[in-house]
């Protein structure tokens, strides 16, 4: 597409939300933000390497994929040139198996760039969740490779931000909204959601021109199963004495969102092999008395929003993140699709249930409130021997912020300290956060001594 055509295209559709940004400004902004971002990616990886001198070899692969403007972008580009479609999605509820089954590439496009959230302020007020603002900003300057590459976006209307984000992005992208019920465990909700899934299947089929049949869907589900198996293996390894830095594990987890699923799985298995050997050697990444921390709350997206894990693991005294309960983390892969009979119908229902019911996203409530999340947190604390929980909220993320008091109450009861850490999409508060995080770690250490 040359310059003229591009301008033509942008002119034809009247934009409902996005302001006109001149091509020149766009290019300039993109260049600067991209340069910063590349620097930060490299910096983050460098720090992760330094944190663990014996860092597993297998992580090299994930470092590569973590470069958003690198290998994976080119790969997708060449796949697209061969005629494959790319379907992006925002929330985790998008049934990626359907996308894979239709021979398209699923990529998650939520943005973790701090700088673009400032640009988003031109469209929505600062009170809005930064993840949303940042994604808008990224779209304005066409920064995100995966967002630009997607031919259509699945937007699941979970929180208010996501709902309106899909509208705003529809200025420039084909958006397929999926209406998700808020009470997740009632029969009528499930029926409704299963209908949405079936509808999405038709839509994807029509769009890609590929029929999703029993065989291809089964294959797609099995690909996911294998990935989940590898992921659960990694999680299990984190239950014992630390063999991998929390940041490394989180990065591995996040790359799944845009990587090739099969290749990701192979490499994750390789990583686990290496870690198992490491555990046998008793070669721990940090001393086993390091406080074991769990992070829960608002998603933290690579590359910019990496400050909390870095602060925890490079703190003085240091902590180690052994578990997380976030949709940028374990929720991506933890739940398998429990297919019973492998008929088309049952597979679709199983997919529907896996996405709706197994999720512990705070956008839900049920007959007894969102107790699933509470229970899941309790289980994780027990099984991963968590000593302290950081409840991470970025300002504007209502749902997580509001559930805090419930979580706190429950964790107080089992005497596990929880720390509410609120922040913004900015690098400026790192110094101040450092003090807060270190005070918390200090406290955990002191408790451990008794």
């Amino acid at each position, binding site marked *: 597409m040359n310059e003229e055509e591009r301008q033509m295209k942008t002119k034809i559709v009247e934009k409902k939300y996005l302001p006109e940004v001149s091509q020149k400004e766009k290019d300039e902004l993109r260049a600067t933000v991209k340069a910063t971002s590349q620097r930060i990616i490299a910096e983050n990886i460098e720090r992760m390497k330094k944190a663990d001198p014996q860092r597993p070899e297998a992580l090299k692969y994930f470092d590569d994929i973590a470069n958003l403007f690198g290998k994976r972008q080119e790969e997708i580009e060449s796949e697209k040139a061969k005629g494959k479609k790319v379907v992006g999605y925002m929330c985790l509820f998008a049934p990626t198996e359907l996308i894979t089954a239709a021979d398209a590439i699923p990529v998650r496009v939520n943005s973790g760039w701090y700088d673009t959230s400032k640009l988003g302020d031109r469209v929505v007020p600062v009170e809005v969740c930064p993840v949303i603002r940042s994604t808008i900003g990224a779209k304005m300057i066409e920064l995100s490779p995966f967002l630009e590459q997607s031919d259509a976006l699945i937007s699941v209307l979970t929180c208010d931000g996501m709902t309106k984000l899909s509208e705003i992005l529809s200025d420039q992208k084909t958006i397929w909204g999926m209406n998700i019920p808020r009470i997740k465990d009632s029969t009528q909700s499930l029926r409704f959601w299963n209908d949405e899934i079936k509808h999405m299947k038709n839509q994807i089929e029509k769009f890609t021109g590929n029929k999703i049949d029993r065989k291809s869907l089964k294959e797609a589900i099995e690909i996911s199963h294998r990935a*989940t*198996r590898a992921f*659960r293996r990694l999680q299990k390894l984190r239950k014992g004495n630390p063999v991998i830095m929390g940041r490394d594990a989180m990065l591995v987890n996040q790359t799944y969102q845009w990587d090739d699923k099969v290749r990701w799985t192979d490499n994750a298995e390789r990583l686990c092999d290496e870690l198992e050997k490491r555990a046998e050697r008793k070669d721990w990444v940090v001393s086993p008395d390091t406080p074991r921390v769990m992070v829960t709350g608002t998603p933290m997206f690579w590359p910019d929003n990496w400050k909390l894990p870095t602060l925890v693991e490079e703190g003085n005294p240091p902590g180690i993140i052994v578990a997380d309960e976030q949709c940028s983390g374990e929720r991506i892969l933890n739940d398998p699709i*429990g297919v019973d009979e492998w008929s088309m119908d049952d597979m679709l229902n199983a997919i529907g249930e896996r996405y709706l*019911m*197994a999720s512990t996203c705070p956008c839900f409530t049920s007959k007894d409130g969102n107790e*699933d999340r509470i229970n899941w947190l*309790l289980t994780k604390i027990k099984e991963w021997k968590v000593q302290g929980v950081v409840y991470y909220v970025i300002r504007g993320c209502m749902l997580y912020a509001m559930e805090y008091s419930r979580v706190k109450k429950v964790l107080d009861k089992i005497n596990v300290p929880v720390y509410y850490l609120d922040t913004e999409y900015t690098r400026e508060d790192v110094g101040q956060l450092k003090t807060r995080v270190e005070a918390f770690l200090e406290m955990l250490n002191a408790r451990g001594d008794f």
Partner: protein
Amino acid sequence: MVGEIIGDILRLTVLAGLGIAGIVAILLWKKNLATRVTFMRFVIQAVAFTVLFYIFSYSVPMLYLLIAVFGLSLFLGRFFCGWLCPFGLIMDLEIMVRKALKIRHRPLPDKLNIVLHKSRYVILLVFLLLPAVFWILDSQEVMVSPLMAQLLAGHYRVYSVILDPMVPFIVPWSGIGTINLASINFSYPYAQNIVTFIGENIGIYLATIFVVVTLIGGFLIRRVWCRFCPTGASIAAINRFKGFKRVPLLYVEKDEEKCTKCGVCKRVCSVQVNEVYEQKSGRIGTSQCMLCARCVEMCPYEGALKLKLGNKTVFHSRNWLEPPKVE
């Protein structure tokens, strides 16, 4: 005489041996943790089927069989339904065929399922009264023998209704309610009694209709008969006796903290037990559950569901994505 008994014991031992061999074979060969129990259940069902065939071929008084099943059920509840019942085996085989043909199953509407479950004792009563009704209609018999004798030992034995699902589809006798094909006698649960009670002429038609309807029903709706089966209901009734609560019972238990409410258990249950999903924790006490352990097998979270005998966990849910460890 002694020789015969020894021969029988020998045969039964061989059978038990074969059953154990089958289970071991499945443990070694079945790598998919998500279907292992299901296959094991087939082995046990097949063994039970053969044992029943033997029992029938020695014309053991039916009453003994009934007592044995009820005795077992005091402890194990509807375990019989899930693991031993030949009619259950027929329906499970149908499920297998349907799966192979990639045809979907139709669940019963939840409401209907619950209504059927709630009226199980009424249905049981109706089934138990049927022999008496036919006895009254049968004017000749009324003349010859008194009601009680008829209902307990005679032509219109009441308990034979309860024993009906236990009639294997291949039987060692011929005659009423059987079809001889290639010198094997085929029968079907309830077919014989329908013919005996109603009389040959209409009975045969009714029995045929019954066979066809339940076969089609069982093909489309999983374990359709078990939803209201009089045998299941009587087992459930027996299992209710409070005095026996102290003996170890077999049951499914749920751990609230580990459950993520993913809904898998509810979907895979062939008799659509809602409680296993809706109840938050503790013992799943509904007598609708036939303890087949399919939900336990399919729950993807370690230890969220358990099949327990007394205080001992027999089997618990696990991460079935893992390849099985060599045991």
